């Protein structure tokens, strides 16, 4: 969020026709400039950016530092490639343009794209750097394109001459797969110092990694669209809360159902003792599922994958019992109340021995429950 006035120096010399950066060096440069302008104006609305050329018709200021992004992008239309770039003159002109900025509180910064070979020697560049430092101007250099001997070193020495507490940077970008702008996004030139990285992070997520929304919860950047991101987050939490409430309710329903529907519970109890050893939770879960589904309106039982057909039968009965009125429920109870029927079912169950004392006691307890149930249902029928 540093308040800054930036001058961007474009290299539009003959060397920019080369296609080692796709589609050609000049286009790659323009894309990078567009991104930088956007980043600067976004990080602080009072930031201003100006653009100038170093070659072509000569060192010209295309647009003086302004915060109007449209103007900046428009001025780069129809630029001609040609000539040789004059680095020293360009930096001096940039310095002058910054000196006459309207808001004197803005920090001064020059960003230079150097794609052509440098004909000046190190000393001149260093003294130029010192002059910039003296006037408190920061310098960022993007070294791409031609890389004859000495160019990187010259530029490095220049940046170290200007550098005042890490405000100036240099980036070397060799030609390759990635676009110039993509590589630039991750550099300190783009991200600035700590602040202002929100936009950079967003641009990185959006542009650099083609399509993948790495890092953002809902595929929406909170910086780009905060309202949408907030809405998504809130609805996610609501859904989670609702599901928890539903599960809780289902658990409560399950427990009440087990008490109320003795017949169903009897068979399920038997099955429970069979599959006992800690697997009771599974049964309860399945029962809950069944009840939840019954609440959702009779879905086919095939959804519940269960290896035990008797369990499936029991569950089905419990579901139907939940739906039907008390009359039919009592019928069901009567059916199950029939001792012989129950014992026949139990005998068919694997692992359950009808002569097992626990099972017998269960059956015994079942009988008085059934009688109670029948009394209740009779009473309700009388009503």
């Amino acid at each position, binding site marked *: 969020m540093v308040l800054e006035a930036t001058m961007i120096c474009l290299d539009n010399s003959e060397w920019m026709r080369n296609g080692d950066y796709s589609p050609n060096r000049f286009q790659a440069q323009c894309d990078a400039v567009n991104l930088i302008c956007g980043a600067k104006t976004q990080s602080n609305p009072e930031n201003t950016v100006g653009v100038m050329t170093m070659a072509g018709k000569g060192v010209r200021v295309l647009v003086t530092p302004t915060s109007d992004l449209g103007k900046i992008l428009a001025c780069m239309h129809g630029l001609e490639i040609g000539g040789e770039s004059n680095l020293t003159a360009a930096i001096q002109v940039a310095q002058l343009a910054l000196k006459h900025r309207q808001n004197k509180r803005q920090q001064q910064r020059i960003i230079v794209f150097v794609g052509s070979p440098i004909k000046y020697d190190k000393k001149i560049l260093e003294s130029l750097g010192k002059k910039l430092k*003296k006037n408190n101007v920061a310098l960022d250099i993007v070294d791409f394109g031609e890389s004859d001997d000495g160019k990187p070193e010259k530029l490095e020495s220049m940046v170290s001459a200007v550098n005042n507490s890490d405000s100036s940077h240099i980036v070397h970008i060799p030609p390759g797969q990635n676009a110039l702008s993509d590589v630039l996004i991750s550099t300190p030139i783009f991200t600035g110092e700590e602040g202002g990285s929100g936009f950079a992070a967003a641009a990185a997520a959006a542009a650099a990694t083609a399509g993948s929304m790495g890092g953002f919860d809902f595929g929406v950047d909170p910086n780009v669209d905060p309202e949408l991101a907030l809405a998504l987050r809130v609805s996610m939490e609501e859904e989670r809360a609702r599901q928890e409430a539903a599960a809780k309710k289902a658990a409560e329903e399950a427990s009440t159902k087990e008490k109320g529907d003795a017949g169903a519970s009897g068979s399920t109890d038997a099955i429970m003792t069979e599959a006992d050893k800690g697997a009771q939770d599974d049964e309860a879960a399945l029962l809950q599922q069944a009840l939840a589904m019954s609440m959702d309106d009779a879905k086919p039982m095939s959804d519940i994958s269960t290896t035990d057909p008797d369990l499936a039968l029991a569950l089905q009965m419990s579901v139907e019992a939940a739906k039907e009125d008390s009359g039919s429920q009592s019928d069901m109870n009567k059916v199950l109340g029939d001792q012989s029927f129950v014992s026949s079912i139990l005998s068919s169950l694997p692992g359950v021995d009808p002569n097992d004392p626990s099972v017998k006691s269960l059956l015994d307890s079942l009988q008085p429950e059934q009688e109670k149930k029948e009394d209740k249902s009779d009473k309700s029928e009388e009503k």
Partner: protein
Amino acid sequence: MASAASSTSQRGQVDLVDFVDWSGVECLNQSGSHSIANALKQGYRDDDGLHLASDSDEQLLIYIPFTQMIKLHSIVIKGPEEEGPKTVKLFSNKEHMGFSNVGDYPPSDTVVLSDEQLKGQPVILKYVKFQNVRSLTIFVEDNQGGDDVTTVHKIALFGTTVDTTNMKDLKKIEDH
């Protein structure tokens, strides 16, 4: 005449450090570790361990805005014998000057510091030129020894405020 720099040495002149607008103080070509606060701020400026030093070359451009209009009477610049400033140009009410336009306007006053003045003797300025000063720009052109680095231990400004109805003072009189 002028004794050693005490705050009200010269007939009602006051140390103007209280009227400096610190948010706007700037110094071009200062070294990162030796900044203008070391020379201007109360406490720091009297500490001989802290000083202001120049960076790329020997020139310094110090911009000091004030919170109200002042009349500047005299200035004290303390520095070491060899690296202390020599030629100092003062500009009144010129905002945001740069090294490139120091030659564009004539300075309100020019001081060539002698050894005694470097030890703390106040330099009387052309009072008539500093009657309604909102901001002061101090341009240190070169130093005594001609080195690359100029060192300043203390800068103190003396004068009076134009707006003399200081409300606090007014209250005191009324309390009488």
